[in-house]
C-alpha cells in the first residue's frame, strides 16, 4: 500500500529523516515510535505532501505522493489542531469534510452516530465552536473526522495524547477494528509504548531520522521497547543491560 524509497529530508546540514526502504502492506496497523525529533511527524508530513522530500519519494497505492494528488481521495489524517476549522461547530466540520469526501449528510450522520459512545456526550449538540472546545474534545472531533468517507489509509499523529482514559481505551478498540475488519491501513505514532504495542501489529522505531527497529508485535515487544528507550542513545548498551539481567 505504502512504499518509501531512499526517503530523506534535510534542513541545511541536518538530516531529520533518512529511510532507505519501508513498505506498509494494506490493512496493516502500523505504529511509529521515537523520541522527540526522531522524525515521526516529518514522515507523516511527507506522506501528506505537506513538505517536500529532499531525495526519494513515497508511493501510496501506486500514486507518487509528491507529484500527483490522486492519493487524496483515499487518504485521511489528523495531525494536530491545524486540521480543525475553529469557527465551525463539530457537526458543521463533519459535514464539510463529508462533502469533500463525497458523502451526503445522511452518510455522515450515520457515521458520527456510531461514535456517540466515543464522544461521551461532549461533542455533539454543544452549541460550541470547535475553537471553544477543550484540547481533548478537539482531538476527538478531529480523529472521528478522519474516519469519514471510509478512507483506505488513516494517519493519526499522537492520537492518544490529551485523551481521557475511557476515550483512550475506546480509541484503541476503534483503531484495531479499522485495520482488522475494514482492511484500512492505519498509521499511528505515539509516545505511549503500551498503547502502540497493544494496538499495532507492527512497530517501527525511529531515532534521529533513522529506522532503528522494525518489530512484529508480540508479547515481548513492550519489554523490548522499554529497554531500548531507557538507553536509547546507545542501542548496543541497552542489549548489554538486557543480557546482564538474564
Amino acid at each position, binding site marked *: 500500500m505504502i512504499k518509501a524509497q531512499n526517503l530523506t529530508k534535510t534542513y541545511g546540514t541536518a538530516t531529520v529523516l533518512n529511510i532507505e526502504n519501508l513498505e506498509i502492506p494494506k490493512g496493516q496497523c502500523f505504529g511509529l515510535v521515537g523520541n522527540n525529533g526522531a522524525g515521526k511527524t516529518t514522515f507523516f508530513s511527507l506522506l*501528506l*505532501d*505537506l*513538505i*517536500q522530500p529532499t531525495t526519494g519519494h513515497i508511493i501510496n497505492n501506486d500514486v507518487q505522493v509528491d507529484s500527483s*494528488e490522486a492519493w*487524496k*481521495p483515499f*487518504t*485521511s*489524517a489528523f*495531525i*494536530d489542531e*491545524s*486540521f*480543525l*476549522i*475553529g*469557527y*465551525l*461547530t463539530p*457537526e*458543521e466540520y463533519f459535514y*464539510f*469534510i463529508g*462533502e*469533500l*469526501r*463525497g458523502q451526503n449528510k445522511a452518510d455522515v450522520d450515520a457515521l458520527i452516530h456510531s461514535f456517540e459512545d466515543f464522544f461521551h456526550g461532549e461533542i455533539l449538540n*454543544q*452549541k*460550541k*465552536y470547535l*475553537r*471553544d472546545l477543550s484540547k481533548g474534545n478537539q482531538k476527538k472531533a478531529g480523529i472521528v473526522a478522519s474516519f469519514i*468517507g471510509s478512507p483506505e489509509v488513516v494517519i493519526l499523529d499522537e492520537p492518544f495524547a490529551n485523551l481521557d482514559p475511557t476515550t483512550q481505551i475506546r480509541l484503541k478498540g476503534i483503531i484495531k477494528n479499522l485495520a482488522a475488519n475494514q482492511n484500512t491501513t492505519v498509521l499511528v505514532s505515539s509516545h505511549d509504548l503500551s498503547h502502540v504495542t497493544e494496538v499495532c501489529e507492527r512497530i517501527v522505531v525511529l531515532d534521529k531520522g533513522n529506522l532503528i527497529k522494525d518489530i512484529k508485535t508480540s508479547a515481548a515487544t513492550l519489554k523490548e521497547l522499554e529497554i531500548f528507550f531507557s538507553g536509547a542513545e546507545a542501542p548496543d548498551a541497552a542489549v548489554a543491560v538486557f543480557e546482564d539481567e538474564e
Partner: protein
Amino acid sequence: MLKHFLSLQWKSFFRSASFKTNLALKILMGFFALYFIVAFLFMGVGAYYLIEKAEMGDPLQVVNKYMIYLFVLDLLIRYMIQKMPITNIKPLLYLPLKKGQVVHYSLGKTIASFFNWGYAFFFLPFSIVLLIEGYNPLGVVAWHFGIFALIYCSNFINVLVNNKDSVFYPVIAVFIALGACQYFGVFDITNYTAPFFNGLYNAPWMVALPWIAVVGLYFAAFNYFKKNMYLDAGLKGKQTVARTEDLSFLNRFGNTGTFLKNDIKLIKRNKRPKTAGLMSFLFLFYGLLFGSGAVEVYDGPIWQIFGGIFVSGGFLFTFGQFVPSWDSAYYQLMMSQNIKYRDYITSKWYLIVIATVISTVLASFYLFFGINAYLAVLVGAIYNIGVNSHLVLLGGAFIKMPIDLTSNKKAFGDKQAFNMKTMLLSLPKLVLPMLIFAAGYYFVNATTGYILVAAAGILGMAFRNIVFDKIEKIYKKEKYKTIHAYKQKA
C-alpha cells in the same frame, strides 16, 4: 522586578515574527511612519492658523468645541483595534509574582501604547503655537495636561468596557445621533461640553479633575483585573453560543458550494473577516469624493475610473487581497483533504465576483449623480471581475501571511502584506485601467474609454480558464513555502 518585565517586553517586540521582515521593507515602513508624524506635526502647527484664517473664531475655542467628538472617535478606534493587555498574562500567573505586580505591569503596558502618545504629535505643536501666539502660559499648560489626562481616561475606559458590545454600541449610536442633531441645528451638545475644555484653560486648577479621573479609572481597572485574574473569568477568551446555519441552497454548486458555505461562515463568525466585510461596504461611498469637488485631483476624468474600481471592488481589495491567508489556521487540512486546487480557487473567485456584483447593485445610488458616474462604477466592476479578481488570487499566492481570524489587530495594514511582488501586482489593478481609459479618452472620447476598459475586463473573463491554469500552477509551486509560513504564528 520591573527589569524582568521590561526585558520580556523588549524580547517579545524584537523577536516577533513580523519584525523580521527585510531591510527594504523596514525602511519603507520607516518612511510611512515619518510621513504620518510629519503630517500630524503640520496639522498641529497649521491647525491654529487655518482656523484663524477661516475666521471660525478663537482657535482654541474651536478646537475645544469639537473635542468631544475627537474623544468619541478615539474611543471607537481604540475599541476596534487596541489590543487588550490580558493576552500575555497567562504564563505569569503561576510564577512567584504578586498579582498586583502583574496587573500593574499589564496596565502599564497600555500607557505606553501608540494610541496614547501618538496624540502628542498633534497636541504638543498646537500648544507651542498657542504659547507663541500669546496665550496665557499657565492656562495652556493646564489645558495641555488636562487633555492628556483625558486621553488616558479614554485608554482605561476602553480597558474597562472591552468586549461589552451591549454597552459600547448604544453609546456610539447616541453620539452619532447627537452629531446629526448638531449638524441639522436641532440640538448642540458642544454647548455643554465646550465650557469644560475651555475651563481647563480659563481656570487652570480644573486640570485636577481629569487627573483625579485618570487615577480613579486606573484603580478601577486595576481592581477589575485583579478580581478577574482567573482562567475562567477575565482571562477567558470570549465564547459565543454557536449557531448552526443551513446554507444547503449552495449545494447546487458542488464542491465550489462547499467552500462557499464555509467562506460565508468564515466571514460571519470571525472578527477580522467581519471587519473586512464592513470596510468593503464603506468603499461603496468612496466614489462620493469623485466629481463632487471634495478632492480636487479626483475631478479629472481619468480618476473617475479609479473611483469606479474601488466602489465595486471594496470586497476584492479587503478580502480578496488575503486569499488564501484566511484559511491559514487550517491550511494543512485543506492541503491534505480531497480538494482540487481548481475548485478551491474557483470558489474564492465566485465569492469575489458575487460580492462585486452585489456592490455594483448597491452602488446604483450613483445614478443620482448622472449616468456617467454609474457608468464608471459599472465599467470598474467589469474590469474587477475580468482582470482584478485574477490578479488578486495571483497575488495571494505570494503574500503568505498567517491571519489570526479572531483578532482585529493588524487589520489595517500589516508589514508582511507589503512585499515587492504584491506591490507590482497592484499596479495593473489600478493603473492599467486608468491608462486604458486615458488612451480612449484622449484619442477619441470618454465613451470609447469606457468601452476599452470594459473590453479589457471581458477579455479577461474569456481567458479565465487559461489564467486559472497558471494560478493553479503557481499555488502548487508555492504550496510548501505557504504551509511553512502559515506555521509561524504571528
